């Protein structure tokens, strides 16, 4: 069973729909036992970082996420919350990836909205995905490049399109909205 973390940042239905299309059953939950025993955990999210962190902390879900041993996939805000710190509301986050989340400088339209290319791919998430394949992004904040970066994207600045450390995986883009390339990436995670 795949557990999708339920918290105060939306976009959960589209992740669940994508899993159903790929033939995987999932449950949307904030139940600690179900999360701990799930085969995989997905940590999605669209929303604001400091209010999401506050919500997770109040329910001790921050500790739960950090202690998970199975493969975990953060998506969009989920990725940002797995970093050390976010400029959005100046909040300390989960600290799984030792990198910080910054706001795009206003040299171009912010948020970045649309399809952009992935480069410098590595790791199991991108098996069978080609350099410069496009995926769908919607975001105003980005994780800086760091030793855990497994995919890079360029928009105003180069940033971490995906991160990985041990059992923790994360994407800034929305694989559930990224057509067949996104499905490939989700499948790679689901098959881990």
């Amino acid at each position: 069973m795949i557990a999708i973390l339920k918290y105060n940042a939306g976009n959960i239905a589209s992740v669940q729909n994508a899993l159903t299309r790929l033939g995987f059953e999932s449950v949307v939950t904030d139940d600690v036992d179900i999360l701990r025993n799930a085969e995989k955990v997905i940590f999605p999210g669209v929303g604001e970082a400091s209010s999401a962190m506050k919500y997770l902390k109040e329910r001790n879900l921050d500790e739960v996420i950090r202690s998970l041993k199975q493969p975990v996939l953060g998506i969009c805000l989920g990725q940002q919350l797995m970093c050390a710190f976010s400029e959005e509301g100046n909040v300390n986050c989960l600290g799984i990836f030792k990198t910080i989340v910054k706001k795009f400088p206003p040299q171009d339209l912010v948020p970045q909205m649309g399809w952009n290319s992935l480069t410098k791919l590595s790791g199991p998430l991108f098996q069978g995905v080609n350099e410069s394949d496009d995926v769908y992004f919607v975001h105003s904040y980005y994780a800086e490049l760091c030793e855990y970066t497994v995919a890079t994207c360029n928009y105003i600045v180069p940033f971490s399109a995906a991160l990985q450390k041990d059992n923790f995986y994360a994407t800034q883009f929305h694989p559930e909205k990224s057509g067949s390339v996104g499905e490939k990436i989700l499948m790679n995670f689901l098959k881990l």
Partner: protein
Amino acid sequence: MPSLCALSLWDKGHKEDTKTHKDTQRKIVMLKKRIIPCLDIQNGRTVKGVNFVDIRDAGDPVELAKKYAAEGADELVFLDITATEEKRKTLSELVKKVATEINIPFTVGGGINSLEDAEMVIKSGADKVSLNSSAVKNPQLISEIAKQYGSQCVVVAIDTKLVENEWRVFVSGGKTPTDLLAIDWAKKVVELGAGEILLTSMNNDGTKAGFAIEITKQISEAVSIPVIASGGAGSKEHFKDVFQKTKASGGLAASIFHYNEIPIQELKNYLKTQNIPIR
């Protein structure tokens, strides 16, 4: 696959094909311009003729949406023009079905008059809602939805027409003029929290003579959010023009895609040969 109607242009088409292959080799690594088919919906079915032979039910929006997604559409817009009281129920069912089956982002518009309407559409699985007349009547609605779901969820559709040398905003499906100038309204909706503008030139809509370059350029250069150009697309060159001459982030069209006059993949291949960043 080359379409049959391109036979008379065989030489030209052949050369373009060769170029396309080279261009796919060196993909442009940056944010892409979006190609967006628009589906008009009435009572849960697509209206305006569709003449695809290779889909089971051309009136079924989900079938058509799947076909477009498979062909490379970057996003979809569903515009509900149902006027009956059953509207909300059929729309919610349709949005749920689309959300289950489609793996690209989609926007739903048409008669979203309140936060509750927006909530229904978003909770059913739409990525964005598009407001038009309701935003002019009640500009705070833009802020309310943006506050609840984020600016990225809120598209403001602006229908504009050149009247006595001024691009005026029209509402109620283009029937009613307002005192607003399109450029002023565009700037205002950004302040209110809109995440995207869908700009339709009524002078160009249905003409197949090309997008309204001047107003699209003016607005796309004046605002800090993406502008989607709509109205007038009749050829591949029209998309090239709007992307080269304005800062539009996307181009929207309906009939040319429905009637397969311009297959999406063919359009995208052509734009790549013109060095326009395309997925």
